[in-house]
């Protein structure tokens, strides 16, 4: 995204000097909404955020990519169905599947795009109650070995923001069984399933652990005063995790 955010320049968190070179790309499609928030989250974690445009044909030497939430292409046809054909998506898919295993995080619409791009299995359909739902949501970290979850403890409960219309995760039974058997369920909804997702699944990982997608929004729980319950910052772990991965700490 070429525009300098009008609202920008967040106060930086204490920076590990080794992080200065960590470049995390944030992709903007037409209709992307939470890109600024993802950029802020990256900045608060101490890394450098790189704004990427869907029509770009190069990844600009980023070390990881976040596909943020929103309604890319208005969710027309099907959420994520058009965005997956963006020139930059081809590069992202190739890099994620390469030996370099580019860490990729898909949040909400980003998760939908990752399933459409076949980086992750399954799909999202309309919430079972048919309404948009925005609420603070407790998740259990089921897999803390991925590039985006290693800063959490296994089984830890975190509270981040859920907000979507098409958030019901579905896949065939065989796929669901495989996800469970291989430990690829990254997050499960706690305190009641908010949308009818199969097996309470809120987020999943690929086998290599570099690609993670989830419906709730960690980037909205990174700054006290602006997240869940006015104080929550449980989402920061996602952004710290990928830095751990990039620095080889985990």
């Amino acid at each position, binding site marked *: 995204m*070429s525009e300098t955010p*009008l609202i920008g320049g967040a*106060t930086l968190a204490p920076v590990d000097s080794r992080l200065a070179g960590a470049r995390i790309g944030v992709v903007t499609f037409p209709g992307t909404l939470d890109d600024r928030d993802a950029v802020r989250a990256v900045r608060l974690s101490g890394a450098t955020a790189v704004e990427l445009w869907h029509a770009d044909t190069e990844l600009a030497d980023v070390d990881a990519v976040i596909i943020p939430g929103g*309604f890319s292409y*208005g*969710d027309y046809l099907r959420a994520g169905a058009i965005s997956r054909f963006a020139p930059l998506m081809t590069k992202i898919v190739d890099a994620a599947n390469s030996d370099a295993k580019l860490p990729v995080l898909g949040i909400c619409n980003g998760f939908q795009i990752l399933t459409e791009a076949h980086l992750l299995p399954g799909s999202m359909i309309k919430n079972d109650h048919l309404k948009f739902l925005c609420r603070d949501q407790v998740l259990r970290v089921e897999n803390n070995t991925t590039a985006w979850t290693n800063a959490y403890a296994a089984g830890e409960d975190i509270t981040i923001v859920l*907000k979507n219309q098409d958030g019901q995760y579905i896949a065939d039974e065989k796929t669901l069984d495989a996800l469970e058997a291989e430990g690829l369920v990254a997050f499960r909804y706690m305190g009641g399933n908010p949308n009818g997702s199969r097996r309470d699944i809120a987020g999943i990982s690929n086998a290599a652990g570099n690609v993670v997608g989830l419906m709730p*929004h960690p980037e909205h729980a990174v700054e006290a005063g602006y997240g869940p319950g006015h104080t929550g910052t449980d989402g920061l772990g996602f952004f710290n995790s990928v830095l751990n991965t990039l620095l080889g700490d985990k």
Partner: protein
Amino acid sequence: MSEISTESAKKFNMDTVANAAITPDVELPWAELGLKQNEFDDVVKVLGRRPTAAELAMYSVMWSEHCSYKSSKNHLRQFGEKVTEEMKKDMLVGIGENAGVTNLGDGWAVTFKIESHNSPTMIEPYQGAATGIGGIVRDIISMGARPVAVMDPLRFGAIDHPDTARVMHGAVAGIGGYGNSLGLPNIGGEMVFDSVYQGNPLVNALAVGVMRHEDIRLANASGKGNKVVLFGARTGGDGIGGASILSSESFDNSKPSKRPAVQVGDPFAEKVLIECCLELFKGSLVEGIQDLGAAGISCATSELASNGDGGMEVELTSVLLRDPTLTPGEILMSESQERMMAVVSPENIAAFEAVMEKWAVEYSWLGEVTDTGRLIIKWDGEVIVDVDPRTVAHDGPVYDRPYARPEWQDALQADTFTGSVQDAARPSTPEELKAAMLELVASPNMCSKDWITNQYDRYVGGNTALAFPDDAGVIRVDEETGLGFAVATDANGRYTFLDPYHGAQLALAEAYRNVATSGAVPMAVSDCLNFGSPEDPDVMWQLAEAIRGLSDACMVLGIPVTGGNVSLYNQTGTTPIHPTPVVAVLGKFDDVARRTPSGWAEDGQAIYLLGTTADDLDGSEWANMRGHLGGLPPAVNLERERELGAILINASRDGMIDSAHDLSEGGLAAALVESALRFNTGARVALDDVAARDGVDVFTLLFSETQGRAIVSVPRSEEVRFNDMCTARNFPLSRIGVVDAAGAALDIQGLFTAELDELRVAHEGTLPKYFG
């Protein structure tokens, strides 16, 4: 067209200006388009000939009540007149532009405006409410601002009426579906159920935008030779005559369906349009810009031209269409959404087109700015409109509608709740008082609105510091400094029905109090005046009184009206809605980190009640629940509101309070329950002393709606300082309790204990029960 006579008109199948000049006697459908005989005669006089079909279309929409404010203009002047120099000091752009602009400091400016989308929502709730958001957001973009928040005050019919669910589901889904897709946090609003709104639901939409001072843009077309461009969505057949046919007369079952007059929204197109416009502004690529809302191209061309050098020439066949069969008149009147018109200097054309290409936005060059003082619109080279744009945009009819205090007003005001039949079984025992509290917080107007607000995204943008159910929505503007704003909307149709002058003032007082309760300094006002037919002298009196009351109160509180909207003809047959002036107040924070939430959180903090309580049950929620409406609304004391506001703002700034909640509808009972449920934290409260001090019984203390009150929680370490401040300001306060986190209950000592779970079930169960 009924008759075609000249050769050229036949060739183009069009009613040209030349044709109009030689066929003076052609019958025109001016009445069907909403014009009155005298207005049509005026059009003929202004033009010196009969209008062409296209001109008639333009005048009919631009001279409609909705666009011309012809019934309210003479009264609305007071908002501009009752303003002191002091009130103007922060006003960068006042009434008359797309939205007013207020200085926020540090080079930042904030623009906000509230508008109605009532009639379209009645007909097609989803699209009506959705496009209400779309329209107000484009007003904000037109000022050069990035939209950063929206709010929707809603008023629907009786909660148990079969049609209410239709409107409710559609409107809420529409607001969510459109607003959520734009990435704008929805941070507040209102939800009122009352059978007076059954046939005329009120859907008002507010948007706020922020910008740097140098980015302020105005709607005008200056500079001869500059190009006029239309961009965004294509023009279609939706919303034709929306402003004139829908919003400017009463519904009447005898006429055919007005569904085609409702616009259909595409939020994705709007989101792209927002980003695209901001990129245009950043590159200084446009000289003037105007959104296309009511009256579409008619409005945009005539307003741009008359606000600028006065002339414009456009070719209407260049407009990109969704439906190629549209006539020129329809194209001029279409209210298709997600369109903008801009004036671009020739040297910026290439850069402008590059931005359009980047965002894949369609555009077409329609013509250019001239210095002729005429707005010329051509169809395939033939002139079909040749008018002085001022006569279209600004010189519409103005009416001094007759008005008079209704005959029934005295009897209404004499019918007080206390002593009425409906007051026969006033609760007095502890059990009755507890049951009354539970009934109040479960009532349609006082129950939790989570069912609605959970369908809105309040987080997007990452700058939401407070949102519903807190008293005001608070947004951070500058992440470095914490500079930000608070905004709240309020209205009470019952109060205003009982006394329009003071009812409007009470709406302002409550919005002001809500902003101050959050800790912000109130700065500016925008209003949406929802009333019945101005042709009814009773309604016209309500409108005149409300405007007079509101403008007087703005003077006392020292905050100017910077913009707004009037929505008339909200009535079914001869029955108007309650007069409902919705007032939005915007306030400023130097640092939003100081914002005060509405709920208790810290165990052991002292709870204070600020202000005194009188018997103000007339027009109250309690009286409403008992089916009574009569008497006089609570007394207005604006000096007291100012003082209370100053206390709340100072206490927030100096860290003396950790929570604050204003007392309004539902009185102390509602405020206590809401403060407890906000963060699920109970309290022990003792009311005997304060009841004795004020000379009221406990029921009145709990349910009266006396103004100028708030409850706050104060850390023990700050109690002395807080007491001293209130005493020094001679403001009454009483320590009524202590936050009790462990208790998980609201313990009204000596009376009853209500478990939080019990309160929550009552408070949160109502909307799901009716709406699923």
